[in-house]
């Protein structure tokens, strides 16, 4: 498992850079329908900020609590994506046809807007969780503490 970094410069920069990166990731995710970006890029930026937090502070540090929690979210983004498709099915249409999302007091274009936003959220969650999970898998070392202690301790 990755050891925490002991350089003062790296740790101080981490305190500044990681929140900015997370804010930028959420901005890219939410703003993806009006500018460049979207769910995939937003998720990758979020994952990169979490991996940076793991690399600098170590996975057991209080700063990495979000990255540690995210390891339990495998498949959550996929469920959100498929859930939006299922809601379209329930609404009486085809899978992922947002015209049949039953949201009251919204016209058809706005239903598509909401559907795109929700599926983008699903993609972002899926990509972010997978990125952190692969980084933890790659740095996993069976000689040291087991992941069970890491994720639940």
């Amino acid at each position: 498992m990755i050891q925490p970094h002991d350089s003062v410069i790296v740790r101080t920069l981490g305190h500044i850079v990681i929140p900015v990166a997370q804010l930028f990731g959420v901005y890219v995710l939410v703003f993806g329908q009006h500018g460049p970006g979207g769910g995939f890029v937003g998720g990758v930026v979020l994952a990169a900020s979490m991996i940076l937090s793991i690399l600098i502070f170590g996975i057991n540090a209080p700063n990495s609590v979000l990255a540690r929690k995210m390891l339990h979210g495998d498949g959550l983004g996929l469920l959100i994506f498929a859930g939006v498709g299922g809601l379209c099915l329930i609404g009486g249409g085809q899978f992922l046809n947002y015209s049949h999302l039953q949201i009251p007091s919204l016209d058809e274009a706005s239903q598509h807007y909401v559907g795109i936003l929700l599926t983008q959220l699903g993609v972002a969650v899926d990509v972010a969780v997978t990125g952190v999970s692969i980084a933890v898998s790659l740095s996993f070392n069976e000689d040291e503490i087991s992941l069970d202690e890491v994720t639940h301790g």
Partner: protein
Amino acid sequence: MTFELPLLILLVVTAAGAIMVKDLISAVFILGSYSFALALVWALLGAVDVAFVEAVVGAGLATVFFLLTLFGTNEKDTHIRRPPVPWTAIVGLPILGLLLLYGAGDLPAFGDANSPASIHISPFYLENSLEQTATPNVVTAVLMDYRSFDTFIETIVIFTAGIACALILRKGDS
């Protein structure tokens, strides 16, 4: 258009450097800079979304994954000895390059409004996506609405990659 030539030279130089350098960690960093130059090329061509993904994934996340993989290997694994180049490659690859250049002469010009790619279905997206989906970014509208099934399968692929990495690499974790 004055940026095109320096960017393309940078692309060729970084790509060749990533292949020819002896140390794999150096190769990973050169590959990251190659991705960054490629992102600039995409941005120059007007494909801002692709440039964004290339910069974030190619120069950012992939570099981190490569480095984490290399840190798990020995010194002798990261220094590679290259066998001499066979003469078939020395003769064959320039011929292949010449054939590709000859074929590239028949491609439609960049930004040609009458090329097959721009007269098939993209006019429909450009004209209708704003009123049908209320989304100003056409790329997002195509990816998430008109082609949402493809994106769904892509999401499944990413999920599978994460699961497969965890199953293979996290050994001894009951």
